[in-house]
């Protein structure tokens, strides 16, 4: 009875915890559902093949995801022949893929990922479940079968962009799936190395028998996959996407959980502070401290049970839509679908209850300590807003935060983010605890003009805020948190992105840069439109030195199957290395950061030379002068000589080859950028617009930009994900603290009903009272903002000095003005709604006060 009545009378204090728990559990349910649904899928393109034979796996450094290593052409031929000979196998189809993109209306369409090439040999179509919807297979060299979604009928002409450049084809047929299929003899020279052979089985064939036979054929040269196991060949990009998505979701959920506890704790604590009278009264009529604690727990559990249940249902209902949003945002691979299951929301529900209990723990202890006589006292004026523990906690936290800030200013690049986060957490906690000391002078300063105004509102606002220091402090605390974290996260991301961009721009000595536009990279035809030096990225496979080739290195040993070498062909494993083809002299001229540690960069140039970074050399046991075994992307391998070792970060990849070498071994590779001497966009012959105003560069999927634009746009996709993740984190923390802000104001206003009625009785109009309430809320928001800006400002200044020290270039602190504006405006609107609306409700009864005779 007591709890029910209390719940009814106290709904204002319970809205916040309810909403917080509800949202927290909803988020957790969604994340849990997405977590269990986010399993690898058999790529559509291979779904028609019952058995897949995939090339050897490679081991990159943790956190990177690599495709399997391709076989050599000889191996492909041998394997295909022997696999096709297995009984019940009707066809063994090597998957030959190459970069291809259609050019429609002068623009390349449907930007494919580099690691997911869309061009295939026609025979690969047998591995997919797609069907011809019109026309027939490509027979002549200039015929193509493509996706019916492009809207091209058989017989119509189409321009395809491949690594060499645009070429004209005729549509031979259309499919009900993605991809461009050329006749096999045409596809083979365009394609990169074969990493997969699909086996098409006769009807009713025994899969496991085929599997055993295929395993016998392949041996250690690959893996045989059937059924759901085929999901292993999904593009590494999807694995990476899912991995990033999970990181973001986990961070978001952890944050939501933490902030939920904080919010439940703070609102319940505020509630206890406000209900001291009521609790004192209960103690006076015979409630034991234990009963009051239990009362608090019961309230929290009731709110938790209902809130969590609503949240679990909400989360489950929203999970599919949220999954789609994640796919759009790039946090889940395309084709991801949420599968509903009962246990993830159930688990989230239980976590919600635990969060409610944890949140109420401290408050219940305080409730138990209320003494019976407190029923008899009025405690509006805070005589001792600061307790001793508050002083100690505040000073220790602030001191710790400042110490961390000093450390931060001298921190290395990896520690900056951590230090910034911990420093800000400590500073935020410290400021929140010290708020009762900081609030009066701030209020004094902020409201100084108010008292000079003729009306009563200004004076009332100022006096109320100054008298109830602790209330002002606790209502502005969530605001402090919101502004602090939003500005910190947005500001540090913007500041460091800016710093990295200006570092990169400073290191490139070129007038302008040709970059891809609407394509994953530049074709050779696009490269040819400007004179300059190029960067042609690819992946090669290094055999760790085993001493067999140069003798320059000791016994570095082999791991796993990485050392199986037969007839000069890499047959298994190896270490994937991010490499690029460059023109040696041009590259040295453009790259202002090149730092040769040993060897001679000038010797770089012949077909059998390479330049490696110090990190890679150390990892693989190489040094200048070593002859090293390298597997190329077409599956062949060879031995190259390391002519120079350069500092990490002084070249954009780990290993440099002459451009011709990469071009020859990776026909599908695309150029990342061309650095030219001329300036971009100066309107003369280099503007990229040919006769009749047709933008020929755009048709080739290229664009000329300045060096600083290039530096800023590099890793744009990465930056976009970082930004999205940042925004999500800001939204979660700001959303929660906004709930806290609204709720404390709502509670404070509801609690002040009597005070407001007194104002009304002393002759104020309803409008005047509401204006006072609104102005007080605005003041709370202003105080919170002022204190909240202090934290990130300190942290951002420290980040700036750390970054500019490191990069040797001046770094600007980017204060994210729009973010601040958005957060403050949002909070202000919420604060006004949360205080003025309940005040209106209270005042509706008129000066007589209706039901408020008894406080």
């Amino acid at each position, binding site marked *: 009875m*007591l709890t029910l009545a209390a719940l009814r009378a106290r709904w204002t204090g319970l809205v916040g915890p309810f909403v917080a728990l509800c949202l927290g559990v909803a988020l957790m349910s969604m994340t849990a559902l997405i977590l269990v649904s986010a399993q690898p899928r058999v790529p559509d393109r291979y779904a028609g093949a019952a058995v897949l034979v995939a090339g050897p796996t490679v081991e990159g450094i943790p956190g990177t995801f690599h495709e399997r290593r391709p076989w050599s052409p000889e191996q492909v031929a041998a394997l295909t022949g022997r696999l096709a000979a297995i009984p019940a196998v009707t066809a063994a189809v090597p998957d030959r893929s190459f970069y291809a993109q259609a050019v429609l209306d002068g623009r390349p369409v449907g930007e494919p990922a580099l690691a997911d090439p869309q061009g295939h040999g026609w025979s690969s179509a047998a591995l997919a479940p797609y069907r011809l919807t019109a026309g027939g297979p490509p027979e002549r060299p200039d015929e193509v079968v493509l996706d019916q979604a492009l809207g091209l009928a058989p017989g119509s002409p189409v321009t395809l962009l491949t690594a060499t450049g645009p070429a004209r084809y005729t549509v031979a047929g259309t499919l009900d799936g993605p991809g461009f299929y050329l006749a096999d003899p045409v596809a083979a020279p365009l394609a990169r190395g074969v990493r997969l052979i699909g086996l098409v089985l006769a009807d009713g064939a025994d899969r496991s028998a085929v599997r055993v036979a295929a395993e016998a054929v392949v041996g250690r040269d690959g893996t045989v996959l059937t059924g759901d196991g085929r999901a292993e060949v999904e593009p590494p990009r999807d694995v990476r996407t899912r991995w990033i998505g999970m990181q973001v979701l986990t961070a978001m959920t952890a944050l939501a959980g933490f902030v939920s506890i904080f919010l439940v704790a703070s609102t319940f604590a505020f509630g206890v502070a406000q209900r001291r009278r009521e609790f004192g009264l*209960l103690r*006076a009529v015979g409630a034991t401290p234990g009963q009051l604690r239990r009362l608090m727990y019961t309230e929290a559990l009731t709110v938790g049970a209902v809130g969590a249940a609503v949240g679990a249902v909400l989360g489950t209902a929203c999970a599919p839509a949220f999954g789609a949003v994640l796919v759009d945002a790039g946090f889940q691979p395309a084709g991801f679908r949420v599968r509903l299951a009962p246990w993830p929301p159930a688990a989230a529900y239980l976590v919600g209850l635990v969060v409610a209990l944890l949140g109420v723990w401290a408050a219940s202890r305080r409730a138990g300590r209320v003494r019976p006589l407190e029923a*008899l006292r009025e405690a509006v004026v805070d005589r001792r807003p600061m307790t001793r523990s508050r002083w100690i906690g505040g000073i220790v936290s602030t001191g710790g935060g400042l110490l961390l800030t000093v450390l931060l200013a001298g921190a290395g690049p990896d520690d900056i983010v951590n230090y910034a986060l911990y420093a800000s957490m400590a500073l935020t906690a410290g400021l929140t605890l010290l708020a009762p000391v900081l609030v009066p002078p701030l209020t004094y300063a902020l409201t100084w003009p108010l008292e000079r105004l003729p009306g009563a509102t200004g004076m009332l606002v100022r006096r109320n805020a100054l008298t109830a220091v602790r209330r002002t402090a606790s209502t502005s605390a969530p605001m402090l948190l919101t502004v602090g974290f939003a500005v910190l996260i947005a500001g540090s991301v913007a500041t460091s992105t800016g710093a990295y961009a200006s570092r990169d721009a400073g290191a490139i000595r070129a007038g302008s840069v040709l970059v891809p536009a609407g394509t994953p990279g530049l074709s050779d035809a696009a490269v040819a439109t400007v004179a300059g030096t190029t960067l042609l990225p690819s992946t090669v496979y290094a055999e760790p030195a085993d001493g067999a080739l140069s003798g320059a290195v000791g016994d570095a040993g082999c791991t796993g199957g990485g050392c199986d070498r037969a007839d000069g062909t890499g047959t298994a494993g190896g270490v994937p290395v991010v490499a690029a083809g460059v023109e040696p002299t041009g590259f040295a001229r453009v790259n202002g950061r090149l730092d040769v540690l040993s060897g001679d960069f000038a010797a770089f140039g012949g077909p059998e030379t390479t330049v490696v970074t110090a990190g890679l050399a150390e990892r693989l046991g190489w040094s200048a002068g070593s002859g090293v075994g390298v597997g190329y992307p077409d599956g062949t391998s060879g031995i190259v000589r390391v002519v120079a070792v350069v500092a990490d970060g002084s070249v954009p990849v780990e290993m440099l080859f002459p451009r011709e070498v990469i071009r020859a071994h990776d026909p599908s590779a695309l150029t990342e950028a061309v650095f030219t001497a001329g300036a971009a966009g100066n309107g003369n012959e280099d503007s990229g617009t040919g006769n009749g105003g047709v933008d020929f560069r755009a048709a080739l999927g290229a664009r000329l930009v300045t060096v600083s634009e290039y530096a800023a746009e590099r890793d744009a996709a990465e930056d976009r994900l970082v930004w999205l993740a940042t925004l999500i984190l800001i939204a979660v923390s700001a959303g929660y603290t906004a709930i806290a802000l609204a709720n404390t104001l709502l509670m404070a206003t509801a609690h002040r009903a009597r005070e407001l009625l007194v104002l009304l009785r002393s002759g104020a109009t309803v409008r005047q009272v509401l204006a006072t309430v609104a102005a007080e809320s605005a003041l709370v928001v202003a105080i919170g903002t002022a204190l909240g800006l202090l934290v990130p400002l300190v942290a951002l200044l420290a980040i700036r000095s750390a970054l500019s020290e490191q990069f040797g270039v001046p770094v600007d602190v980017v204060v994210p003005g729009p973010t601040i504006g958005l957060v403050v405006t949002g909070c202000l609107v919420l604060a006004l709604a949360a205080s003025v609306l309940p005040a209106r409700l209270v005042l509706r009864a008129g000066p007589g006060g209706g039901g408020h*005779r008894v406080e």
Partner: protein
Amino acid sequence: MRLHEVVRAYGDGPRRVAALDGVTVDFDRGTFTAVMGPSGSGKSTLLHCAAGLDRPTGGTVTIDGTDLGTLGETALTLLRRARVGFVFQSYNLVPALTAAQNVALPLRLAGRRPDPAELDATLAEVGLTGRGRHRPDELSGGEQQRVAIARALISRPAVLFADEPTGALDTRTSRDILRLLRDLVDRHRQTVVMVTHDPVAAAHADRVVLLADGRVVDELGGDLAAETIAARMTRLEPAC
């Protein structure tokens, strides 16, 4: 029940205020005692200490042979719940509960289900038949005070303390309340201790204890007349 050399001081050092400064007083079973004295003389403090709502800084308080100072917070609460009723000057009802629920609150806190007949009887005793379903904000001041008295009586306490129970009421309502208290003493051998400023109210008691500056300065007994008490009070006033 007995108070022995009870001291209650607030603050320390130069700001120390001794609200009670060595008070020794007995309240015998079935007696009606009025506590009087100038404002700030320590009457409320005395009542709080005697009722176990506050802990004295010195001396002992015993109820039925139990020394309150030896009890922990929970044990003290349980004892208070069983043996002590307290009526505040400002009624201090729980606004969210109806009159009947407010009255039943101590029983529920003790984990007992209130018997509806018992509840009705108690409400009838304080003259509130039929008002049980009203919330405090729908009752007049006198009615609220009666609810508070009913709440204090429902657990049949050994001692009933009342701090200026008639302070906010008109003469007529005051008289009703005082008759009610007198009745309790006479019919149920209830012990009642009441703080009041009103000599007329004090005249309903068997004994008047006079406080000044935290000390017992006088005791009046026998057949008390309002005039005698008033005269004794006026002599006391200049003393502080």
